């Protein structure tokens, strides 16, 4: 789920707490004193070159590809306007663009609405079992949206879905009557909403937490009631984070491939991201066309990121940090506590409980049986999956990716953040900008560029290339975590080391690195989860021997063997769970909403 994962952690504050800016994807360099040192350091140059090759070149290649006449690497391919014209001037694609954007904006608006209400209720009212509800809201973050979508396909597919098949006989409805159909535009939007909601909730909740409670107290003392205070004081103060989360979700939803693709949204309208995939893979492939659609998508995600960054920058103006640790006044809900708590529980049911029940149920069937009356509990699916040699390979690939991509990304992110936060050359701003750039590029579009760029190299279809792709994709998160960590370390701590006779390197290794380690650990764990469930890019970049579990699940799903898909989905969840447990018990890193 690259798209989601990509921006998913806009708010990277390390566990050390008291982190100033959870919503920060703002340009770091502009924040530090704008001091221009004449010569950029070697580190700056090295980081700049790596980031350019990792991020900018593949994106540029998408544009190059859009102006080619044939497949990448083909000697007969030459400059041509055909692909661009056929996409940019075709009513079919323009209509699809309008549909994609409309869907994205509606999903973003609804996520923000529900996310803001949930954040306010959890932060300012006496809801029942608050910590349980909060856990329920962030739990879906640890489920891959792709797996969630797959599970919802099992539940709500028009003919074979568990809900339809079983309600038919339970309610005595005629066969073939469709009660829910998840493979529709509203269905896709529903699933997107389920898995995007935690992000808007977290962004808005963190800005509510950072708000100075005396602003609300002053409103109460001026005779305003609960509603007036919430709407006229609280909402304006958190508005920048509301706006920021709106644009963030709009960008994810515009470029997301996995959810509509997994739900099989393919009749009549399909989002542009799905069309990119189809043009790349379905015979007869039209790679220049895919690249051209990619560029079309890119303009809008870029615009969204522009607005996103602008609102995040504004958020610093409003939210007061490091204020007194007084607790805001808690609104008493009265009997409303009950229905509100039930609504939260229903969300948890829809986003986490039902999907996993469906997957476990299907994984225990020898065939994709969805009718409760015909179910035959068996472990055959597990056996057949584990007998498939592709599975062992995919498991190892996933582990490899999960270990290598976060490690490289964290190290590179630390270097980039160091340049952006500590170095004072003009190029630090450029480094900061490039490292945040992948947020604006939908995963499947970036993957198109990667394929085009590397198709003639020995790296093509290897695991290494997939890891390189993911490192580029996760640079925004890795840089953000490290930068937040670095910004909390006063520069004089490093300078004191230099004054005590330490070289730059010794200061970096003995002072800076130990102090940012908690931030780097959180970053690593998060990226581990992201990369072990990634599908948006892997689907195009992985070869037959480098496919991870997510792509395997996708293949089983395309074959219609939902029982096997379920087994792989459970396996993926177990890998992620193992990662979290190791993080918690071995490295003492806790992921909680406060730090995301």
């Amino acid at each position, binding site marked *: 789920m690259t798209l989601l994962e990509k921006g998913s952690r806009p708010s990277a504050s390390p566990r050390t707490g008291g982190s100033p800016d959870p919503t920060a994807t703002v340009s770091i360099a502009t924040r530090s004193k704008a001091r221009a040192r004449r010569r950029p350091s070697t580190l700056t140059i090295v980081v700049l070159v790596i980031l350019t090759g990792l991020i900018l070149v593949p994106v540029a290649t998408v544009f190059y590809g859009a102006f080619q006449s044939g497949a990448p690497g083909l000697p007969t391919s030459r400059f041509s306007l055909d692909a661009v014209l056929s996409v940019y001037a075709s009513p079919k694609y323009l209509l699809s663009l309008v549909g994609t954007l409309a869907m994205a904006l509606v999903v973003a608006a609804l996520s923000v609405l529900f996310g803001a209400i949930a954040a306010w209720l959890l932060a300012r009212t006496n809801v029942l079992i608050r910590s349980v509800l909060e856990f329920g809201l962030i739990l879906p973050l640890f489920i891959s949206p792709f797996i969630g979508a797959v599970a919802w396909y099992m539940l709500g597919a028009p003919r074979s879905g568990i809900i339809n098949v079983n309600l038919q006989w339970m309610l005595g409805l005629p066969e073939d009557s469709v009660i829910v159909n998840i493979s529709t535009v509203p269905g896709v939007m529903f699933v997107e909403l389920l898995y995007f909601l935690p992000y808007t909730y977290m962004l808005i909740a963190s800005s509510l937490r950072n708000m100075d409670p005396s602003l609300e107290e002053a409103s109460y003392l001026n005779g305003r009631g609960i509603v007036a205070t919430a709407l006229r004081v609280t909402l304006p103060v958190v508005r920048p984070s509301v706006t920021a989360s709106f644009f963030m979700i709009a960008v994810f939803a515009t470029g997301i491939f996995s959810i509509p693709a997994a739900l099989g949204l393919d009749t009549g309208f399909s989002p542009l991201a799905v069309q990119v995939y189809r043009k790349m893979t379905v015979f007869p492939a039209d790679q220049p066309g895919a690249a051209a659609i990619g560029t079309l998508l890119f303009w809008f995600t870029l615009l969204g990121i522009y607005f996103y960054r602008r609102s995040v920058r504004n958020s610093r103006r409003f939210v007061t940090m490091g204020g007194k640790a007084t607790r805001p006044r808690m609104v008493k809900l009265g009997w409303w506590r009950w229905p509100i708590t039930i609504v939260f529980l229903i969300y948890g049911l829809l986003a986490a409980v039902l999907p996993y029940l469906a997957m476990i149920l299907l994984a225990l069937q020898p065939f994709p049986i969805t009718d409760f009356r015909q179910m035959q509990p068996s472990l055959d699916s597990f056996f057949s999956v584990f007998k498939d040699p592709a599975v062992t390979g995919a498991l190892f690939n996933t582990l490899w990716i999960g270990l290598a991509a976060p490690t490289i990304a964290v190290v590179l992110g630390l270097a980039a953040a160091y340049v952006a936060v500590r170095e004072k050359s003009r190029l630090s701003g450029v480094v900061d900008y490039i490292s945040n750039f992948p947020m604006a590029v939908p995963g499947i579009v970036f993957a198109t560029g990667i394929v085009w760029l590397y198709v003639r190299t020995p790296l093509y279809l290897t695991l290494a290339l997939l890891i390189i792709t993911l490192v580029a994709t996760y640079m925004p998160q890795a840089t953000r975590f490290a930068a937040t960590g670095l910004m909390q370390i006063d520069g*004089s701590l490093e*300078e004191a080391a*230099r*004054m*005590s006779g330490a070289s*730059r390197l010794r200061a970096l290794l003995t002072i800076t690195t130990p*102090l940012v380690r908690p931030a780097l650990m959180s970053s690593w764990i998060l990226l581990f989860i992201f990369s072990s469930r990634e599908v948006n890019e892997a689907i195009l970049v992985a070869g037959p021997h480098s496919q991870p579990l997510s792509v395997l699940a996708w293949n089983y799903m395309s074959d219609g063997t939902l029982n096997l898909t379920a087994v792989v989905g459970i396996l993926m969840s177990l890998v992620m769970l193992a990662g979290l447990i190791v993080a918690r018990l071995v490295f003492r890193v806790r992921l909680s909403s406060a730090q995301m």
Partner: protein
Amino acid sequence: MTESGTTTAAPADRIGASLKVDGLRIAYGAVEAVKGISFSIEPGEFLTLLGPSGCGKSTTLRCIAGLEPASGGTISIDGAVVAGPGKHVQPEKRGINMVFQSYAVWPHMTVAKNVGYGLKGVPGAEARQRVEEVLDLVGLGRFASRYGTELSGGQQQRVALARAIVTRPKVLLFDEPLSNLDAGLREQMRFEILALQRATGITAVYVTHDQTEAMSMSDRVVLLNDGSIEQADEPREIYRRPRTEFAANFVGRANILPGVLTAARDGLTVAGIAAPVRAAEAADRSIGDAASAVFRSESVRVGEATASVENVWPATVERVSFLGRNLDVLYRVGDLEVRGELPPGSDVAVGQSVRIGVRAADVHYVPHESR
């Protein structure tokens, strides 16, 4: 710090270096923070860079430390150029150390580790002994195994101090080290730092915006304003004979009456005052004709005390505020305001007409600055 501690920490080889700053300029893009300043420090001297925030004093200090590149001019330590055209000796190679405003005590290390950090290359046993010695010197011997964050502000400041002297630097830099402490502790630390510097003989450059710190600790004060030196002198001299209106205002409270110098340059014609304001010393040619008469508020006399005084004016008492140790009195002389000090028991009332006066010996002239 105990007397015995002081003596053990002053081996003969620990003598400070001389430092010379020549035409130092520091620019950030188009903004020039330090505009070509020069001063020098003798070995073992305690020099303070004093000035309001934004005057370039901290920047100058960081430039001496090597943490900030110079845009022009040279800095040399014991005659060896450490910063100059095409030359920038890395901070760790300059043989200096620094105490930071934020203390910069590393939170992931114990006090002993913090202090011993700079003793890389010193054999273990000797390093341990030196750390112990320095910690005893600053009175933190008992806290060696604590973590920096478990200490109070004053204790952290002592750790920072110990860490800065343990490497036996030739020059010790202080960047507003006391500004985060509360008033009582600040005064105590002032004396401790000074005693330590005297005992070790390390050359010290101290940056502060607090004139009391500057006055009480320094051998010499370099008063900076807006990137340039206003005056570099001994503390008493700056107080007694400020050379500019800024210096008069920044150090102590001064009355500044603008006017025009008489032909003999020993009187200043001030609008609204009948007789020229006299000073004991005639004004230097270099200060021009438009000048200001400067005198301290404690030099202002009232009533009978004005009997044998050269400058006497009729005044009305406009405001009296009780400051505990004395009364701060604002007099009006024509259109001018004059501030004076009276003992707390004095019998003055607002609106009262009085005669006030200043001895010519307490007045001197500075160039007039039009604001």
